[in-house]
Each structure stands twice: as structure tokens, then as C-alpha cells.
């Protein structure tokens, strides 16, 4: 099955097979490449510029005047200059730009010297030399800087070198921008790179309708991963080994990717920017086309750089400053949504899977049977029971059948052609009905991300373990576990990264690291007649066990499992799951310090009320290697949501002769 986490490797080989294609000339067809129409113009400018490069600009009196005004008005200290150049205060108290491309700077020391860069920028306005990796005159390549300087220094354009920014104008006119929308594609656990979601901007066009917004361009920041990266590519991604840059694919491509192929819900936040602010944002985006940034998966990622564009559009916004160690896409969405008046409206775009599930709810029992039948045998369309239905219902059933067959062709690639063939027959029959489909309003299963709890969590708890009492402090870097309030988060998807719990045992008078998690991922995919995706889990961490003579012993754990889940609605919503799993433990408590074995888990996740959730699970593991032993454990946990960022928990853990009860208060931030 292609939905395992380790498809990374499968993808790798696919990447390799595609590498020649990426190198093909087609890869150069940017929507704006047609600017190449102006092929001849830059050559002309180049010829002219030979005699007037930046280095030998005569000491123009106006140039000295501008530099002087700039220094008098302390332009170099203004926030906008820092935003334009992406300067950050470095450890020595000076400035360093986050941009890593030397061509982004006009001064050779510009990356660390805002003053030198400012002067070099003013000087470049008198030159027609082609600069930056886009090879344009400075005023065009760095058009946002120019327009900002022009306004702040009241520059008289007639005294500067004459240039024509046709390439920019073509690009700008093609975008035909009216407003900007922040797009959030929700988390997708089956691709490790997408576990935290993704954000990008859509440039909404003038005269765009609800439907033609598909044609708008987007501004997407992503790392460029060259082919043949080998096994170290994720490590390089985390530590800045790749270059990230901005691109502008049309929105329909992103919709295809997220909605149709990866089945991720999309949220669209239209921002309240004025026309001037939209222009500033686009001018700065154009400049950034000249730059690359070293891509850091955790902090300087897509969401971080998207925020920096918003900041330049409206410098009264302080967004990137809020993120120090990591920038989680959902956090950036919450931050943007929390700015007063910034978000105009929010729209939801369901994934294909959500569409199918919601449409199913509108089918009667009989209709649902026909639908499932149709997905298996297209011929059943001729059945009397189907033909007898009103034509609108026939159309509705055929529509959801087609949705489902498309879903299958994307998720079961090895049989894609079969599903496509079936879909073709269904659609031919559908077209013969000659009525347009009615619009169906699709409600999301989990609410919009800005209503979700914060990414990090701190908790304070107390409880009993065996004959002792304890207090506990916990902190978790991210992101969400199955008992956390699920509003705004992908349903049944747990991703925990880096958590640590410290406990003080009162009677033993001992303070110790009780638990630590490096990564703990669990994905439940409820199965039924139509959806067959497996559930899976993976956990690396440590806990504290009572084993043999050892009362409190550290125990390293690596656990992975694959299983299945079923959803029911007896009370509100329940998910029952079962896993087959393998586990390796490392602890001084064991003979030979380790044990390796396998077993299984069954469990239940249940929403008792809107705020109250219960989880119960039982696990049996038999260890055949190392310390030959077995382990039977129970867990019952409950969570009660107080508010968006506060919750209470009561948890009970049982192992052989080891009982642990804890009550805790949890805060998300």
C-alpha cells in the first residue's frame, strides 16, 4: 500500500525517474516566461550599461543629496528597510539578512551592513546596469525598495537613469491583483513533509468569481530539492541544506494537489489589504524572486516567509517576531486571524474524501446500497430500483459514485485505470440525464484551524503511583494528540514531537525524567465498505517502568504498528481501533538490558460530549528477544475542554503491579 509513512523511499525512486523530465525545457514554462517576448530589450540595455556600470557612476550632486537626506532621516533604522532586506539582529547585536543569495544585495557587504546596502541601493538608481539573478536594472529588480525610497526621499525620477520595467509590468498585469488570500492546506499524515500543514498566498484577480478563483495565481515558498539527494535529504531539509524560493503556480494546481490527490481540506482566509498594500506585497514578492533563502524545515519554512510578505504589505503587523524556534503553519494562521480586522472572510474547500463522506450522509439506506453497488458494478445502473428513482436522485447518486471512483483512482494507483474506466461509464450515463447537479453545501468535520489550540503544551499534574504520590510538570513542543481538543485539527491524527515530563515522587523523595517523547505519531483511518486505508502508529521515546526489582526504571521505547479502525455513532462519535505492533525496549531493568517483541493493541476513542472525550486501550506484548517476558497494560484517559487553550485530564495507566493515576491541567500556547 502506498499510504505507509515510509513511502518517502518510494517517492525517492519516483523522483529519480522523473529527473530527466524536470530537466526538460518544459520546466521553464513559467506563466510569466512569456516576458521573454522582451528578449531583445535587455540586450540593448546591457549594451548601454557597459558604459555606465554602478562602479563608475559619476559623483552626481543629486546622488550625494539623496544619501545625505537618507542619513538625516535615519532611513537605515526604519522597520521597512529591515523588512525589505529581511534583516534580523544577530548574536553580536548587529544585523544579518535572512536572505542567503549574494545577488539579493547591491553592496558586497549588504548582507550584514544595512547602511552600506542603503547607500548602494540609492547609488544603483543612477545606473542601468543589470543586477540581481533576474538581470534587470536595480530599479526594476528591486522595485519595492525603489518605490519605498522614492516616497521617503521624495525622489525626482527625472534625475535618475531612465529605465523601463516592462518585465515587472507584464507580470503585474498578468496577476491582475485585487486582494490577497492566505491559504491553509490541513495536515496530511501520510507525507512526513506535510504533517503540519502548509500555507501560501493566493493573489485574487479583479473580476474573479467564486468559481474562477481557480485561475488566480498563488505565491508559494518552497525548498528546491534537486534530484538524487539520497537518504540524507530530510536531514538537509531540517538544517538548511536546500535553497528555498518563491514561485507562482496557478491556484488550480494547488487545489488539484491538495483536494484531489492528497485529500486535504483547504481553508481560505481573505485578507483585508488596501490596493496599495496589495501592490507593496507583490512588488516585494517580485524582488524576492531575485533571492533564495536557506530552507529550514522548522523555522524558516513556507509559513515564515509568507508572514514576512504580509509584514511588508502592512508594516504595522508584527508577525515573524513571534516565532523563535519553529514556525508551525497552523500557528501562523491563528496569528493572522488574531490580528484585528486583518481577515475579511473565511472559506472552506473540502477535500474529495470529505465531499464523499458528507454526500453519503444525504443518501437513504436504499440509495446508499445502490451507490455502493454502482462503485463495484457499473452495470447496476440498469437496475429497476435505480431507474425508478427521480432523475435528481439518480444524478446525485451518479455524482457521488464518480467522486468515489476518482478518489479510488488516486489512492489505489495500481488499479487506477480500472477506476478511471468505470468513472467514464458513470459520467457518460450522468451526462445523458441532461440536468445540472445541484450545489451541495459541504460542512467540515473539524472546524477552521484558527479556532484550534496552540501548538505547544504545558501541563501541571499530581497523582498516585503504587504507594507513592507525585507532582508532575510536562512540556510538549508540538503538536496534537488524540485526546487534545480536536477543533481545528485533522480528525484522528496524532503528531507529538519533543515532549518531556518531570516528576517528583514524595515518599521516594526522588525527582526524575518520567517520560520523554521524540516523536509519537498515530493515524486512525476509519474503514467501511468504501474506505480501506490502514491505520498506523510510530513512537520513539522513553518512560518509567516498574520491572523486577527495579521500582522506577528508565525505559527506552521504539514502537510501530499497523492496524484498522471503525467509526460508529452510538453516542456521538466513536472510533474503535486495533493494531498489530512490534516494540523494542532498552533498560537496565532487563536481562541483557533489552527486550524485543510483538503483540497488539485494541482501543476506543469516544466523544462523550462536545467537550468531554474518552480514550481506552489495552495492549499485550510478548518479548521473544533479550529479556524474555511479556507485558499487559491498560490505559484509560479523559479530557475535558475548558476553552480554546485550556483543558483538564484524568489518566489511568496500569501495568503488572504498577498503577498510576494522574490529574492534570493543560495549557496550550
Amino acid at each position, binding site marked *: 500500500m502506498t499510504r505507509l509513512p515510509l513511502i518517502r523511499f518510494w517517492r525517492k525512486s519516483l523522483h529519480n525517474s522523473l529527473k530527466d523530465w524536470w530537466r526538460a525545457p518544459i*520546466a521553464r514554462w513559467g506563466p510569466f*516566461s512569456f516576458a521573454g517576448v522582451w528578449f531583445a530589450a535587455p540586450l540593448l540595455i546591457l549594451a548601454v550599461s557597459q558604459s555606465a556600470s554602478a562602479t563608475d557612476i559619476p559623483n552626481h550632486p543629486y546622488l550625494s543629496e539623496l544619501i545625505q537626506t537618507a542619513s538625516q532621516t535615519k532611513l537605515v533604522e526604519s522597520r521597512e528597510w529591515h523588512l525589505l532586506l529581511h534583516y534580523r539582529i544577530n548574536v553580536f547585536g548587529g544585523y544579518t539578512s535572512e536572505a542567503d543569495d549574494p545577488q539579493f544585495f547591491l553592496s558586497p557587504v549588504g548582507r550584514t551592513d544595512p547602511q552600506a546596502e542603503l547607500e548602494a541601493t540609492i547609488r544603483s538608481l543612477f545606473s542601468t546596469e543589470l543586477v540581481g539573478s533576474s538581470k534587470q536594472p536595480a530599479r526594476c529588480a528591486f522595485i519595492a525598495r525603489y518605490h519605498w525610497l522614492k516616497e521617503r526621499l521624495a525622489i525626482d525620477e527625472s534625475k535618475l537613469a531612465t529605465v523601463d520595467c516592462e518585465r515587472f509590468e507584464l507580470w503585474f498585469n498578468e496577476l491582475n491583483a485585487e486582494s490577497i488570500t492566505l491559504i491553509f492546506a490541513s495536515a496530511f499524515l501520510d507525507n512526513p513533509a506535510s504533517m*503540519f500543514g502548509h500555507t501560501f498566498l493566493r493573489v485574487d484577480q479583479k473580476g474573479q468569481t467564486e468559481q474562477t478563483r481557480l485561475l488566480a495565481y498563488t505565491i508559494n515558498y518552497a525548498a528546491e530539492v534537486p534530484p538524487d539527494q539520497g537518504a540524507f535529504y530530510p536531514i538537509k531539509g531540517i538544517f538548511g541544506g536546500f535553497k528555498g524560493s518563491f514561485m507562482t*503556480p496557478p491556484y488550480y494546481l494547488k487545489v488539484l494537489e491538495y483536494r484531489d490527490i492528497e485529500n486535504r481540506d483547504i481553508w481560505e482566509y481573505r485578507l483585508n489589504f488596501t490596493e496599495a498594500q496589495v501592490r507593496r506585497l507583490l512588488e516585494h514578492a517580485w524582488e524576492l524572486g531575485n533571492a533564495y533563502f536557506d530552507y529550514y524545515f522548522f523555522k524558516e519554512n513556507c509559513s515564515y516567509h509568507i508572514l514576512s510578505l504580509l509584514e511588508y504589505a502592512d508594516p504595522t503587523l508584527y508577525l515573524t517576531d513571534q516565532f523563535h524556534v519553529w514556525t508551525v503553519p497552523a500557528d501562523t494562521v491563528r496569528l493572522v486571524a488574531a490580528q484585528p480586522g486583518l481577515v475579511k472572510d473565511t472559506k472552506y474547500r473540502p477535500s474529495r474524501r470529505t465531499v464523499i463522506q458528507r454526500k453519503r450522509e444525504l443518501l437513504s439506506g436504499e440509495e446508499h446500497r445502490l451507490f455502493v453497488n454502482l462503485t463495484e458494478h457499473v452495470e447496476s445502473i440498469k437496475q429497476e430500483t435505480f431507474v425508478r428513482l427521480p432523475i435528481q436522485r439518480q444524478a446525485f447518486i451518479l455524482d457521488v459514485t464518480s467522486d468515489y471512483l476518482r478518489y479510488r483512482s488516486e489512492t489505489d494507483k495500481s488499479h487506477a485505470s480500472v477506476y478511471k474506466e468505470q468513472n467514464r461509464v458513470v459520467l457518460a450515463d450522468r451526462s445523458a440525464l441532461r440536468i445540472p447537479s445541484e450545489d451541495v453545501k459541504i460542512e467540515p468535520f473539524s472546524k477552521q484551524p484558527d479556532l484550534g489550540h496552540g501548538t505547544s503544551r504545558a501541563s501541571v499534574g499530581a497523582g498516585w503511583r503504587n504507594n507513592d504520590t507525585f507532582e508532575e510538570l510536562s512540556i510538549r513542543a508540538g503538536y496534537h494528540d488524540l485526546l487534545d481538543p480536536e477543533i481545528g485539527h485533522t480528525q484522528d491524527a496524532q503528531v507529538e514531537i519533543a515532549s518531556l515530563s518531570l516528576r517528583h515522587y514524595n515518599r521516594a523523595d526522588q525527582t526524575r525524567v518520567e517520560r520523554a517523547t521524540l516523536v509519537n505519531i498515530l493515524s486512525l483511518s476509519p474503514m467501511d465498505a468504501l474506505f480501506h486505508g490502514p491505520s498506523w502508529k510510530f513512537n520513539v521515546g522513553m518512560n518509567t517502568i516498574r520491572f523486577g526489582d527495579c521500582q522506577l526504571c528508565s525505559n527506552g521505547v521504539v514502537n510501530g504498528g499497523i492496524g484498522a479502525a471503525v467509526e460508529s455513532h452510538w453516542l456521538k462519535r466513536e472510533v474503535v481501533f486495533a493494531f498489530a505492533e512490534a516494540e523494542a525496549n532498552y533498560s537496565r531493568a532487563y536481562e541483557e538490558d533489552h527486550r524485543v517483541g510483538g503483540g497488539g493493541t485494541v482501543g476506543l476513542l469516544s466523544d462523550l460530549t462536545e467537550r468531554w472525550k474518552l480514550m481506552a486501550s489495552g495492549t499485550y506484548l510478548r518479548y521473544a528477544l533479550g529479556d524474555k517476558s511479556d507485558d499487559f497494560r491498560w490505559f484509560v484517559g479523559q479530557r475535558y475542554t475548558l476553552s480554546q487553550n485550556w483543558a483538564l485530564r484524568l489518566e489511568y495507566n496500569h501495568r503488572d503491579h504498577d498503577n498510576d493515576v494522574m490529574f492534570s491541567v493543560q495549557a496550550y500556547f
Partner: protein
Amino acid sequence: MRKGLIVALSAVAIFGGQLSMVLAAGVADNGPGCGLGKELWRDQNTDAWGKQVLISTTNNTILPFQAFGITSQTMGCKNGGKFWVEYKTSMFAQVNFENLSQEMAQGQGEHLASLASLMGVPAEHQGEFFAMTQERYTTLVKAGEASPVAMIKALNDAVATHPVLAKVSAQ
């Protein structure tokens, strides 16, 4: 525990991955550009590179749009914007062929509305356009399976002979 930590770290590295990494770009500037592209559009059947586009998107990569601002100067598209308009429509039809066939059969949808707008059908006459595509579904899809350009041509012909659409569309 140290050994365990190393194992664990490498595990997280494998699972780490990147937010929206793109495979692509950084392509050497050696393409003959526009001319070849045009040929490709004309001759290629739907599956050839369109499929690869789709495959590439499954890998959380995006299309071959190079970083903007660095737009190529060597495309050699001498015919200006005209080619682009044609190209934009074919590219849309190519990438969204599955969505378009579905919506044509269903007689409505956002992809179909977007295509209508690219083809210059005024918004108030979209209904007629939708009905026409539903009626000619089989022919249009057959053309689309041959090539997106053929489908656009079939659509253009259908619009040209349509009693209402022929008059109102900006061709």
C-alpha cells in the same frame, strides 16, 4: 540511553521531511523554449507529460514554474501574448482534464466555469455553455483524451455553431 538517542534521532530525521519541498527548478537554461513547447502541446496525447504533472503533484511538489522574477529571457516566443492565451487555456484543460470531464457530465462546476471564462464566454451565458458541454460530453471527452488542444478546438467549434454562444463569446 545514548545509543537509543542516536537511533531515535535518525528515525526523526527519516520522518522529518520538509514542509512543501519542491523537486525541480534549478534547471539549466538550455531549452529551445517556446517553439518546442508549442510542438509538444500540439502533438502530445493527454497522458504523456500531463500524467507526470499529476505524479509530481502527488509528491508534494509543484509544477515546473520557475521562480518568478528570474523569468527566462530565452523562451523565444516572438508572437507575444497571443500564444500565452492559447497556452493558458490548453494548460488548464490539460491539468484539469479529469475535473473537467466530471463537471461537463454534471452540467456545472468551478473548473468548467473557469474554462468558460478563459474561452471568453460571458458569465451570464455560462448556463448555456454548461448545457452544451453536457450534451456533447462523449465527443468532447474523446477529443480530450487525444489532446487538450483537440478538446479546446472541439469546444471552440461547438461554441461557434451554437445559436447563442456564437454571438456572445469573445473569440
